[in-house]
């Protein structure tokens, strides 16, 4: 079970028979936010300035973003590669101001996003900022009044689904604070693994793989069940865009995000937001 890395490449040309991916990959994150941007009229003919983390995940995200922009009429007027140890973004912010984009877009990862978001608020640039990757803990760390825009997530603790609510309540009882996205990923991964072992009455690797590859449905504490796609081992599941609640609207410091409705739409197949077989070079 691969519970953290999000690059398309791991499910694509580097895919592996023995790896199953629980978190959503780059393309799904781009689609989750991209669809929200299209809906909000922030895509067609808009000028985007992107900041991209300079390693495979960032490059992957940028590639997915570019194909979304190309397909939906967005224009990239600047893309900066950011070394992974950058903590000060001021020179990049000056370049953004000079370029005057319509939307600033983050393809960064980990706590670099928090640094960017904090410094973006510090400089107070007028262009809206969005991003294709942001962990819940890094969003919380931005602090009130710093984060804005639309971002993607695999899960958030305010999700209105009974199974999810029970998990959140139990987690809070034990840890005194709500779970963030990684807690959810780890929990459902373990649950799926346990279900596989129970059903197959085995811990044999090949039997477990066969069980997952049957595209068995799993309750992943979301509105719809999920399943591992047989040919690239990616968990097909709903994803969500989120925005930031207006000042004073959050019940506590963990309630600062406003979860958007799930994508894909209920009547659509879960696979419409994932890479298609033509786009994904995975062969096991």
């Amino acid at each position: 079970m691969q519970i953290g890395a999000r690059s398309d490449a791991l499910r694509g040309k580097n895919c592996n028979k023995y790896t199953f991916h629980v978190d959503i990959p780059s393309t799904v994150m781009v689609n989750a936010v991209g669809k929200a941007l299209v809906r909000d009229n922030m895509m067609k003919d808009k000028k985007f300035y992107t900041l991209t983390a300079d390693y495979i995940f960032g490059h992957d995200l940028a590639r997915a973003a570019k194909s979304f922009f190309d397909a939906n009429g967005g224009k990239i007027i600047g893309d900066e590669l950011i070394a992974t140890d950058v903590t000060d973004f001021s020179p990049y912010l000056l370049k953004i101001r000079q370029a005057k984009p319509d939307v600033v877009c983050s393809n960064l990862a980990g706590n670099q996003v928090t640094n960017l978001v904090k410094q973006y608020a510090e400089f107070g640039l007028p262009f809206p900022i969005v991003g294709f990757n942001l962990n819940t803990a890094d969003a919380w760390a931005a602090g009130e009044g710093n984060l804005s825009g639309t971002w993607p997530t695999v899960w958030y603790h305010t999700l209105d689904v009974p199974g999810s609510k029970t998990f959140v309540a139990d987690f809070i009882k034990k840890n005194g604070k709500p779970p963030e996205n990684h807690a959810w990923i780890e929990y459902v991964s373990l649950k799926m693994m346990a279900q596989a072992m129970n059903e197959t009455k085995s811990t044999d690797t090949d039997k477990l793989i066969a069980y997952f590859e049957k595209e068995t449905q799993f309750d992943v504490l979301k509105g719809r069940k999920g399943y591992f796609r047989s040919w690239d081992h990616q968990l097909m599941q709903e994803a969500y865009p989120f925005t930031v609640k207006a000042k004073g609207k959050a019940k506590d410091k963990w309630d600062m995000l406003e979860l958007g409705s799930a994508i894909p739409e209920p009547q659509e197949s879960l696979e419409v937001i994932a890479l298609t077989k033509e786009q994904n070079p995975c062969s096991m």
Partner: protein
Amino acid sequence: MQFEFLLEQVVNGLVLGGYYLLIALGLSLIFSVGGVVNLAHGAFYALGAYVSIEITNYLGFGPAMVLSPIAVAMLGILFERFILRRFYTADPILSLLVTFGLAMVAEQLIRILWGAAPISVSMPQGLKGSVFFGDFLFSRYRLMLLAVVAAVLVCVWLLLHKTSFGRVVRAGIQRPDMVAALGIRLQPYMTAIVMLGVGMAAMGGAFFAPITIVHPAMGAEIITVAFVVVVIGGLGSFWGVVIAALLVGVVRGITIHFIPAAGEASIYVLMFLVLLFRPRGLLGERIEKFE
């Protein structure tokens, strides 16, 4: 227009350099006087940030910026008294190891006390946003920070060059044996220098907390740049560190203007070039005890 953009990067680099200075100056002082490379310097920077957040929760932003460096400087006394002091005359590898170990202990301690997840902190609303000077854009917060750094710099310079305390410290850098022969014990001075250096690092952490992510490993992130500044500036030189810090900020800004992906690499290239032509750093003095 292109030239103006470049100039804006230069000025922004100078502001950033001022911030590096807070961390690097203390590192340089401790090294120059005690001969100890304090690899735990970043840990004090991180502690400064965490303590300032705690104090902000109770007393607000202003008091936190003053009290956090003072509190961490007090820790610096213990650090000097019980650890550093044993290593002034020892093999340098020992002090490297002990301060490196301490940096790791401090990081884990922060993890235990405040948790591994990053902590959120915001600056006062009034300091947010930018100001324009002509066509130049500045972050209001960083301008305030620059003023603080300038004030600290003046105070440290006065302390080192216009007081009897500073005379002893400067003499101690060059000829500790002669200072001893004159009947002056260097140890209390060393304690004060460590306090000062560690306090400045904590001040850097406190002031940078609102614009950077506060997490347990933040000390390790800053220490490398601080070292680069000290090495470029040269040991024993106040102005060397000042010039190096500003230079590092400016070179980074200009590089990002032209080749964004090489921004972080540029400061190491700068260090390489400086060392190639001036192995002692820009204004480094010849210090006999290190030769």
